């Protein structure tokens, strides 16, 4: 039992714990919307790709409405590209290094959550703060 606890401590670094929490938040978000819960890794990836697309679509709507500047939209686009690259890497890694793939997925999800918060603030009329 003591060995198991020690092993868990080695595996559950702060980064890994945050990654697990980010994935749980993604799954919980789907449940709250009445969506079927993503189970397989590709389904979790698909949910995250959809989140990247939502970030871009929301940014386009806000830019068209004049609620964010072109420079801010450019920054969000660049961060969305980063998240997308992380998801693509996770997809590539899933067959060879599943742990690394999960970490990439969780990191991208964390970035997307931050971007969605920025966009939600702008939708609500909060004009302070730069894109993350």
């Amino acid at each position, binding site marked *: 039992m003591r060995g198991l606890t020690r092993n868990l401590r080695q595996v559950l670094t702060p980064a890994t714990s945050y990654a697990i929490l980010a994935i749980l938040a993604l799954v919980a978000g789907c449940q709250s919307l009445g969506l079927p819960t993503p189970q397989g890794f590709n389904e979790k990836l698909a*949910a995250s790709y959809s989140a990247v697309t939502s970030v871009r679509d929301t940014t386009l709507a806000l830019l068209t409405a004049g609620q964010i500047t072109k420079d801010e939209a450019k920054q969000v686009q660049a961060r969305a590209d980063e998240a997308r690259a992380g998801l693509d890497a996770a997809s590539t890694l899933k067959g060879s290094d599943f742990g690394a793939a999960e970490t990439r997925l969780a990191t991208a999800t964390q970035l997307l959550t931050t971007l969605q918060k920025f966009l939600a603030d702008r939708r609500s009329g909060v004009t302070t703060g730069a894109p993350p």
Partner: protein
Amino acid sequence: MKADLAIQILLALINQAGVLGAAINKARAEGRDDLTDEELQSFRDADDASRLRLQAAIDG
């Protein structure tokens, strides 16, 4: 926030959620617990198209 902007954003979110839900439901109906790589590719393609639309607005 103007109502038409709110509705536009809401529709975009519902569309994304609907596409994802339909893909997962289709997989379950076929007895699978995950999407195929081909199905996953369609989500990448949708994001590619979204990226191009946003970039055109930024450049325009």
